[in-house]
Structures are given as structure tokens and as C-alpha cells.
């Protein structure tokens, strides 16, 4: 996993609540057995005017000029600004894979769906929670100034605006540690293999019907 320490990038505002995982990456693209290559189909139904197909060339497809990521002023955006309950719906990790593959490193929203939030950390994508009022203000600032960038500092748990204002955010220490160091948590869990085995033996004794079926 890619480590995340400090990132500065252009902000793209998606002014919409309840952005679901079907919107982020429609189902036909879930047929891939790979982890990469989902970027060109991120937000496919909003981004293009026609229906996307897996394994197809997207370069000649008609773009929806109204969609935020198609507007030149947001080209190269790597910080996504959105409204409440971002990533609701399915557990598909293809959603963070697509966001990451497109080039996003951080998302800022008032709230996230639990599974999406969890999946993002496993893929070097940082979902930041800020209160609604702050998010609302960032929307206004982003729309008011072309090329608006934010700096996300995970080490110090703050977002820095172009004017130098620092906005603090909360993040779980364990997740932060893994993300800062790009750690694979399977390796970490396997350090506790003896404890897992001990638990398993106890469980086998108290609920033997759970084993060997």
C-alpha cells in the first residue's frame, strides 16, 4: 500500500449527498479480476453521456460537460470534496480502487458509509471527516477560486487552506499509523498468531459444532 504523509492537490467539489458505490464504479466494471485500471470508469454514468463497457477503450466516448471532473479547472484534482454519507451502498472495494486509480488521495466529507470508510484506508486513500459547516465553506472557497488547492497533513492531522488556515481532523491512531507507513495489516495481525490459535482452541472446546463442517 502507498504510504500517505502530506499531500497537496487541486480540490474537486461534488456537491451531492449520498454518493453511492454504484455511482462511483458501476457494476459492469466489477467483473475485472484485477485491482487496477478502474480510474477511467470512475463515476462512469455521470462522467460520460453513453453507457460504458468493461475492457473497452474510453478515449472516444462523449463526455458530460456538466460533470465536475470534466471541467478543465478541476483537471488533475486529487482531493475530492463531497456531502454527507459518501460511499453508501455496497462493500465493493472497487470504489476506493477507482478513486485512487483516477488520482484521488484524499476525500473530505461530513460523513461516510462505514464499509467504504474502512476500505479507503486499506488503499492509501484518506477519508477525512469535517463538520458540515466547514465542508460547506470549503465548497464555497473551491468554487470561488480556480486552481484551489488544499494540503492534507496526516502526520499532524490537519488540512491547510491556501490562506494558511489550519483545520484539525480526527483519525483512528491505528489506521493513521498503517497509512503513514504504508503497512499491510495482515502481517501485523499474523504477529498475534499464537493468540489467535489459543482463542481458536478455546472456541473449539466450547462450540465444537463450528469446526470441521
Amino acid at each position, binding site marked *: 500500500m502507498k504510504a500517505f504523509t502530506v499531500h497537496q492537490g487541486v480540490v474537486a467539489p461534488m456537491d451531492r449527498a449520498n454518493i453511492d458505490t454504484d455511482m462511483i464504479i458501476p457494476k459492469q466494471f466489477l467483473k475485472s479480476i484485477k485491482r487496477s485500471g478502474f480510474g477511467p470508469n470512475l463515476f462512469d454514468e455521470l462522467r460520460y453521456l453513453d453507457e460504458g463497457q468493461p475492457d473497452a477503450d474510453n478515449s472516444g466516448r462523449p463526455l458530460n460537460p456538466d460533470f465536475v471532473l470534466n471541467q478543465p479547472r478541476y483537471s488533475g484534482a486529487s482531493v475530492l470534496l463531497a456531502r454527507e454519507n459518501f460511499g*453508501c*451502498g455496497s462493500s465493493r472495494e472497487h470504489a476506493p480502487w477507482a478513486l485512487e486509480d483516477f488520482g484521488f488521495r484524499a476525500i473530505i466529507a461530513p460523513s461516510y458509509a462505514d464499509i467504504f470508510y474502512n476500505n479507503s484506508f486499506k488503499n492509501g486513500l484518506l477519508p477525512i471527516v469535517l463538520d458540515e459547516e466547514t465542508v460547506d465553506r470549503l465548497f464555497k472557497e473551491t468554487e470561488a477560486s480556480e486552481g484551489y488547492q488544499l494540503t492534507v497533513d496526516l502526520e499532524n492531522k490537519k488540512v491547510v487552506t491556501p490562506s494558511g488556515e489550519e483545520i484539525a481532523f480526527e483519525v483512528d491512531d*491505528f489506521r493513521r499509523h498503517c497509512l503513514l507507513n504504508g503497512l499491510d495489516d495482515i502481517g501485523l495481525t499474523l504477529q498475534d498468531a499464537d493468540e489467535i490459535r489459543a482463542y*481458536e482452541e478455546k472456541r473449539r472446546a466450547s462450540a465444537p*459444532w463450528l469446526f470441521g463442517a
Partner: protein
Amino acid sequence: MAGKTLYDKLWDQHVVKTREDGTALIYIDRQLLHEVTSPQAFEGLRIAGRKPWRLDANLATPDHNVPTTSTERESGIEGIQDPVSRIQVKTLDDNCDHFGINEFKMADKRQGIVHVVGPEQGATLPGMTVVCGDSHTATHGAFAALAHGIGTSEVEHVLATQCLIQRKMKNLLIKVDGELGKGITGKDVVLHVIGVIGTAGGNGCAMEFGGSAIRSMSMEGRMTMCNMAIEAGARVGMVAFDEITAEYVKGRPFAPKADQWEQAVAAWSDLKSDDDAEFDKVVEIRAEDIKPQVTWGTSPEMVTTVDGTVPTLEDAADDVERSGFKRAYEYMGLTAGQKITDIKLDRVFIGSCTNSRIEDLRAAAEVAKGRKVAESLIQALVVPGSGLVKEQAEKEGLDKIFIEAGFEWREPGCSMCLAMNADKLGSGEHCASTSNRNFEGRQGYGGRTHLVSPAMAAAAAIAGHFVDVREL
């Protein structure tokens, strides 16, 4: 000290280790696998040179991509027309064969939707932790199990370590007291709940369904409710263990055998929230207030009653919701104030992990019996949840009732719930669907989904528009 909730008990029973930062290593008793969210996890194992920790904790079956027509199913995997789907189904077979994981392959009559197959086989048991790379894993909580969906990285984590790193969630109780009216099902209850608390109402929570209306509900109804806990934002839905649970589990292939049955039931009998348990939040609902539900918009919280109308902008709580309503009117081709019963339908879908069990098919067949699907409909599909559900339905003659009424009777799979196979809506088409999500494009590009119960879907198929099942 206050008593424990069902969630507290299940959590405590599965903690391997608590870390200083408050996260815990939780032991997973059962992992269900399917073709869409597992290939990258197996690839991860291979790259790292790891093996599954415990083979017997895993059970796999292909469901999302499988075709549902008998002609396409006849020649096995090679017969799957869509080459990308074919590769994914084949990859699941290859991975399960390679690692030695028990799989019900496409031609096996035990194959079906993972969330139908698990309970049907007794592979889902009370007191278990159950995970699957699918958000509707919450279904299994109906058995007083701690069940939730996970992403592919976590699928790999469970394969490799039999554990997950978790932080404890909050306790939310949905208490439904009273008696449900005629024709009101678990589907109507859960859609009503989502309408009350919203799609983010359960975020960060484990949601228990309790109250007298739940106690008298069948396992199928409970599974439907828990299945859609995720549509209210809760990863976990749960119902306490009782005699109805035990009766359902007994004698199933993976259930405890005779010599262990009494011991298991004794262990399970405490799987309920204590009377003095404290919940972080309680939502009380009167069963008598619940009418047949129909979603009108593009989020499950955009729901109303069959005798209702599409809400107006004045009904929206704030600007964010108002802009959501506007977008939904446009996408759904509906106008504010329009009567729900005036929405004309193009297709009907009865199936999915929410509503494809035998009780669901019986309820739909009861409505369809002796009637005909409206000529204005392009298609009315019935897709059983598993090969065994299909077999049982055929034994009861339900297939004939459906076919005579003009429904198509299909092979088991996820089908039109998420349209990863050939079963999908055309752009602009309205569908009465027993599935779980009405998101834009969910059932096909430009498709317009209305979520309803199986009986409501069957009644809508006959009329060509929504009708109140209570008036049939």
C-alpha cells in the same frame, strides 16, 4: 452494571485481543465467498505466499455473474455468453480448487445467492461471526449472528488470519411492537424504518430488530429486514435467538448434529439483549402504522406508502435533500405529488438476497395464482435464491403458477438486482423490484427501480402499475 445487548455479547465472545488504541482483533467463524470480491484477495494470498488459515470456515458459491436462463446454464461455465463474467466465475472455481475451499459450483443444485445459501445449509449459525465481501451479509444477523460485509482487502485478511481488526460499534435498537397488518412483510417493515431514520441513520451502529412484531416474524422475514440494515447505514442487522431460529436451523447440513444439538441450543439461548441492556439509541415503531411500502426515488430512504404520492420539494428537510429530490424526479421521470398507483411499470423482478426465499415465492405465487401479467409489461422475472429454493418451489407447483400467469421462471443467482448478468432494465424503464437498492443505474443503465415486497411486486405485475395488496 447494566446488562448486555445481543451485539455486546457476540462481540465479547469473539475478541481475541484488545489493543491499546481500542481496536480489537475479532475471530471470524464463517466466511462466505463469491466471484466478484474474491479474485483480488486470492491473488494477494498467492503474491504473499500465504495459505488460508482455516479451510473449513469458508464456503463459496458464484452468484453475481451467473446467467439465469436454463439455455445459457446448460453448458456450464463455457456456456456463459459474457466473456468477462465467464472469466470471473471460472476464477472462483480455480481459486477454490487450488486452495481447497468448499464451493457449490454453478452446476451444483446447492448453488445460489450466498446470503440464501448460507442459512439454507446451516452454514450460518446463531452465535457466529459471519463475513462476506458483500454488504448484504447483514442478512445472517437474523440468526443472532454478528454478520457484516467487508471489502476485498478484509476478505484476504480473514482468509489469511481468520480475524478482522475492528472497533466496536454503537448499539441501535429498532423496536417494532404490535401486530403487523394483513399483507405487511419484513420488507415493508425495513423500508418503513429506512424512511424514518434515513440511509445514514444507522451509520456506525449495529442494529437490532426487536419488539413483539419481530418475535412473531418468520426467519425469512427477519432475514429480509437484516439484509437491508445496510440501506439504513448499519453494517450489522440482528434479531435475537428464539424457538423460531432453532426450528429453522435444526437438521440443516452444516447444523450441529444430534449429539451436539442440545449443547448448541443451550449456548444459543442467551443470544438476546438483556432486559436492562442499554442501547445508544432506540427507535420505536408501532407495527399497526406500517403500510405497504414503495420507493419512488433513487435512494432507499425515498420511500412512501402505496396509497401515497411522490413528495414535493416542501416535504424536503433541507437544501441538500431538496436538490436530491430534484435530481430524483428527473432521473425517475416522476413529478412531485404524483400518485404512486399511477406509476406505469415496464418490468417486474422477484428475486435477490432480500426476497428470493421460499416464503417470498409463496407470497408472490399466491397473488399470481389464476391471474395474468399485464400485457403492457415487457418482462416479469422470478429468480429463486438457490437451486434448492427452486427445487422446493417446483415441488409445490409454484413454477407452474408463475409460468401460467406469464412470469419467466429462472435459474438461481443475483440477476436483475444488480444487473451484472444479462438480466437488466433498459434506459427509462420502471421496474417493481423485490431487491434492495434503487440507486441510479443499479438495475441497468438509466433503469428506474421501485423497491417493494414480493406480494406487491406480483400484484404490480398483474395490474401493470402499483396496487395495494391489502385490497386484493
